[in-house]
């Protein structure tokens, strides 16, 4: 197990390094350097530009030097000081802007994953056990639609329907009075009354996929002789199914988190923009349109890191529940 974990950890560090490289490449993509843009906007606004301060910034980020030197300055700042650079639009260090929003992203995505599993498990088991029943067909049709509907379109429809039916406007994560309040039951309730919509939108496609996989896995398992044996020995139907076949069918399902997560992070960006949620998504979009590249790079990097860590967790979880992977040749 230790060997497995250390192997995965090394792979993760390499992946993280690749992520940082991609994020840096995206920072470098727009033509010109941001300091020039920054100075131009400052002068345009009539602000006084302090040449010494600009020169200091230029030295700090290594502008004008080779890309590798710039990358080195950027990445050492992050690793050693947790310094992601300066947001030129907000005139503040990137770190002060992103942590709260990133926390919201993680909260929403985590809740979406939990909901996905809670919904997909019973439906998937039902669809496999009662194959070709009305419920099975409904689950299949619902699954296809859930996969085909773009999540931002789903969010738009939800927004429209709640407005027409209840006269309410969806959006945000809290009502204004709870925005900065401390956690209490009232605040939790307020959060849930806002968060149901994004969680529903985010979890739909994943739920559909999970149901499909679980149903297929379980159908394979249910055909096996040991299930017949268990039944012949007089085990109740409930235990016959839940005790072994479902447990076996769950294993491949755990490994799906690895590729569910990137999709989830992706869709949370766009859904947050539609539903106006204070997560990393809208900030990323804004920073990209205003070419606030350190902020954008930091968000892209952290979203990537988040995904990589999530994948690692799912790998370890899989190794924990499935000895074949733990001791396998891989």
């Amino acid at each position: 197990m230790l060997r497995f974990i250390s192997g995965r950890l090394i792979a993760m560090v390499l992946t993280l390094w690749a992520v940082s490289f991609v994020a840096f490449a995206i920072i470098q993509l727009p033509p010109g350097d941001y300091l020039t843009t920054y100075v131009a906007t400052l002068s345009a606004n009539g602000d006084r530009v302090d040449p010494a301060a600009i020169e200091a910034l230029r030295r700090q980020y290594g502008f004008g030097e080779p890309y590798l030197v710039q990358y080195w300055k950027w990445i050492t700042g992050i690793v050693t000081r947790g310094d992601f650079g300066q947001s030129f639009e907000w005139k503040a260090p990137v770190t002060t802007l992103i942590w709260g929003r990133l926390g919201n992203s993680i909260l929403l995505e985590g809740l979406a994953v939990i909901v996905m599993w809670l919904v997909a498990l019973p439906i998937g088991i039902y669809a496999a056990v009662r194959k070709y029943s009305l419920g099975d067909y409904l689950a299949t049709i619902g699954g296809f639609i859930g996969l085909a509907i773009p999540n931002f379109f789903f969010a738009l429809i939800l927004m429209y329907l709640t407005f027409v039916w209840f006269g309410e406007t969806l959006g945000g994560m809290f009502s204004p009075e709870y925005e900065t309040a401390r956690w209490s039951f009232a605040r939790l309730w307020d959060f849930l009354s806002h968060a149901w919509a994004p969680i529903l939108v985010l979890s739909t496609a994943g739920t559909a996929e999970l149901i499909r996989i679980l149903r297929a896995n379980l159908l394979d398992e249910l055909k096996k002789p040991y299930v017949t044996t268990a039944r012949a020995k007089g085990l109740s139907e409930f235990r016959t199914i839940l005790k072994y076949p479902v447990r076996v069918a769950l294993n491949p399902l755990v490994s799906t988190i690895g590729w569910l997560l990137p999709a989830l992070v992706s869709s949370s960006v766009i859904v947050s923009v539609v539903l106006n949620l204070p997560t990393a998504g809208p900030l990323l979009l804004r920073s990209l349109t205003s070419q606030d590249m350190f902020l954008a790079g930091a968000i892209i990097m952290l979203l990537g890191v988040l995904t990589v860590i999530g994948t690692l967790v799912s790998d370890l979880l899989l190794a924990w529940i499935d000895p074949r992977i733990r001791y396998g040749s891989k």
Partner: protein
Amino acid sequence: MAVETMTHNPADAVAVPAGRARPESQIGLMWRRFRRHRLALVSLWVVIAFYLVALLAEFLAPTDPSAYSARYTYAPPQGIQLFSTSEDGSWRFFPHVNGYATEIDQKAMRRTFVIDPTVEIPVQFFVPSDPYLLAGVIPMSVKFIGVTEARAPFYILGADRLGRDLLSRLIHGTRISLSIGLAGVTLSLFFGIIIGGFAGYYGGWFDSAVMRVVEFIRSMPTIPLWLGLAAALPKDWSALQTYFAITVILSLIGWTELARVVRGRFLSLRTEDFVTAAQLDGASDWRIITRHMVPSFMSHIIAAATLAIPGMILAETALSFLGLGLQAPIVSWGTLLQDAQNIRTLATAPWLLTPGICVVVIILSMNFFGDGLRDAADPHGR
């Protein structure tokens, strides 16, 4: 013909009814299996219909997609009435649309349109129009459907903020959205076959390196990456340049899935007897790949490519919706949905959501069609 017999699987031969002298072609066999898939067959027709609309956009669209009219801001859908009833209760066949009457909403202080059933504007097929070029080549001066009265409103699906006809814009958007899906997949397929093919055929360090890269790209959230790349496009690029740039950006990530499929196929075929036989016969690598291996898995690749198109369409729609994909003068489903972004607009003009329905329909049918194709291409399937 040599390829034909090479790739003919024993399982295929079983499907040919006894008593037939002439063996069926591979395409014929696939078609036979595909036809049994009802849903896939229906989906095929839907897909064909969509692509026909895309091809004949100028002919089918009643008006120019950028023709605006300040008089009809957010005019609701008219719907086509087939029959006209007169006061004495008798009716006759008379396709028409109703005109609009305006009412002032006192509370909201806004002008709202209501359909006025007393005004009947006749609708005709093949109405003469200003000359235009169909698909940019064939000069024509007739539209599929339209009204003959000059300046009469004709908004079957309603109008947008500038009083532009949503139906016409939707039809032109279909052309852009569907073609970007096709172009993106073609480009991905090109990279996927070359890179995946090399990796699968030669194996070794190149294979492991390619697979690491593929795994890495697939483990990244795509939307932030796409956004980052799309944001770097210069703002002063022409519509055509942006269009191609977006296609390239989409296929930068899209090639990975196809490369994986191609590599898997190469790996499994490399050890097949007919490949070994060809190698022992002294055939060159190039010949083995192009004459023996590619034909035997081409159908799988086509199925995989079909299943990749919906992802491309979704990605383009999402990017354009966020404002970083295709830009305003280009009409695509994504740019159309951008108009429906806030709740105020949605409440006044819910018909602006129709492009989304098109997206759902085309993605569902592409998926069903691709699934059917994949099943039909599988020689071991029943």
